[in-house]
């Protein structure tokens, strides 16, 4: 991907920052304008080192709940899956104060309801032939089933936190999360949105999806499983998905994951029109060869040097 590809995206991000320092999902007539955690975190990572990113972090810090979690947006009173993204951003920024520690503690103790006593008890009973299991993923919202995407974000966040402040509790929770993620692989070695297991008496998902993998969740799962050296089939599947998908979001997460796993990614011809979705735009900026994709690394240096271009510092 050329520098113009990246600089075009970074310029658009700079131009579309809300006055409060955050970003909305969509900047278009009729679309919402309030700042949301997810696009704000991705944009702050893409623009790391710039005042725009500092303003974003200042905004996000103010959203954190006293219990440690972040909501998806300041007027939303639901414990948010985006807490993991804020921890990742905090680690990138070298922030490690009490607020971040509280968030790590909250994330460590949260889990999808498939990790409830009932589910775990039935796993123990039925594990006789398949070996013991202690699978604990993370869910989008409290009291619901684990899904691949929130689990992947949580694993990246906790692995980054463990580089700075390792602890046995963190190590155990990461291991449980990794096992859960490996357990819900699709038959084709990639990942879709999660298992087809049972939660509170109902099957996952409102809809019945084919048991094949999706590009975005496969990229995210591989990102979360950094350090696992037994993933050749999964990485091959990721490359196949990268070549075949028409999803820009999928391509972005696959690019980030493959690059971090040391696999080169072919350049994508720049689109005529920039994406409407600012979270996607920021992800594309992060995913480029010159982008800040290394911020999702969970091994080695905790704060890779920012590589973005045209920074207006």
């Amino acid at each position: 991907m050329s520098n113009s590809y990246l600089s075009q995206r970074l310029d658009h991000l700079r131009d579309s920052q809300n006055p409060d320092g955050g970003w909305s999902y969509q900047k278009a007539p009729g679309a919402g304008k309030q700042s949301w955690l997810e696009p704000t975190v991705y944009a702050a990572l893409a623009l790391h080192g710039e005042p725009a990113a500092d303003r974003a972090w200042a905004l996000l810090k103010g959203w954190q709940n006293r219990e440690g979690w972040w909501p998806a947006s300041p007027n939303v009173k639901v414990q948010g899956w985006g807490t993991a993204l804020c921890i990742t951003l905090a680690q990138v920024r070298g922030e490690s104060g009490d607020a971040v520690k509280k968030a790590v503690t909250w994330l460590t103790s949260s889990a999808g309801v498939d990790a409830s006593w009932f589910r775990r008890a039935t796993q123990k009973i039925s594990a006789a032939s398949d070996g013991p299991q202690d699978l604990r993923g993370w869910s989008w919202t409290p009291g619901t089933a684990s899904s691949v995407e929130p689990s992947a974000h949580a694993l990246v966040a906790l692995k980054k936190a463990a580089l700075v402040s390792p602890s046995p509790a963190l190590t155990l929770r990461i291991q449980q999360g990794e096992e859960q993620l490996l357990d819900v692989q699709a038959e084709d070695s990639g990942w879709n949105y999660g298992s087809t297991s049972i939660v509170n008496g109902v099957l996952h998902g409102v809809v019945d999806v084919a048991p094949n993998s999706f590009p975005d969740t496969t990229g995210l799962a591989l990102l979360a499983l950094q350090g696992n050296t037994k993933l050749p089939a999964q990485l091959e599947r990721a490359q196949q998905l990268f070549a075949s998908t028409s999803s820009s979001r999928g391509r972005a997460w696959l690019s980030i994951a493959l690059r971090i796993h040391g696999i080169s990614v072919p350049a994508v011809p720049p689109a005529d029109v920039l994406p409407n979705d600012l979270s996607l735009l920021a992800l594309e900026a992060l995913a480029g060869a010159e982008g800040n994709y290394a911020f999702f690394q969970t091994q080695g240096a905790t704060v890779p040097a920012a590589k973005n271009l045209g920074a207006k510092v």
Partner: protein
Amino acid sequence: MRRRELLPLLGAGLTAGFAGWNGGRKVAVRSFPNPSVAVIKAASYSIDLTAKIVDGLKACKLDPSGKTVLLKPALVDLDPNGCINTHASVVAEAYRAFQQLGAASITIGDGPEYHRDTWELIEAAGYRQQIPDCDSRFVDLNGDDVVAVADFAGVDQMYLSATALGADIVVSLAKLKTHHRTGVSLSMQNLFGVVPGSIYGWPKHELNQIGLSDAALELTRHLAFTSPTRKVFAIVDGIVGMEGRGPILGDAKQAGVLIMGSDLPSVDATCCRIMGIDPAKLEYLSVAADRVGVIDEQKIEQRGEKLKDVRAVFKLLPQNEQYRMTPA
């Protein structure tokens, strides 16, 4: 299936009867005025659908002049056979119909329930090709601003799309489909797209926790009855529908019909009768009946075609044959 997956399934079987059986049914039963449902023949997507939709809107006495309108199609998944999503022609021509009837502003928006890349769906579904300035007219409801609504099926606060709650008319532009779990997926379930993924994720497990029937009922209630100025309306794309293992893995079924009305349960019940399904046998419609609308055929004022002239019996999964309409 691995053995350790079996016990949770058994546990689920025991608890399934209780799951999701909570808040929605507390909605009081009341009487509703007899609703109108228009059934309009439309042989294909290449005919003048604008005129057909205008006819349907007029037959149901919906006057959108001066109103803000949200057209909410069913965008679900990549759809190579053209039977999963609301067809682009129906969306584009509904847009023109509302424009022709003087709507003040028209927005198109959806928040797909499990497919994260909404813009990929828009492109693949042909919306960009058929709807002028599609990107500037479309709002991804998964990332929309939100408004909290209270007392939603036992949930203290549920967040819904601000664009939907702010519209004068929310049009559920649904697809005529079977559903492997609920029997059918029509205009009421299409409202799941106003629940934002930014909070509830992909898929929106929260709706499962609430229960699909209660979630459909509560979304209909909140959109149709909690504001004196907001109305809902349904246009179901039954030109080509889906039978069998819907709402994603089924097969295309030509039905050649558009079904419209402002009482969503009555529209869905009429769709069921066209599909050869007894609406009273479906949990979500029996729960919705007389709480957010009408399903009794005797009370529905049928406009346009007679049902017997447009009946197209849809194949059902074996476990859903129990929903089949008993022959008269």
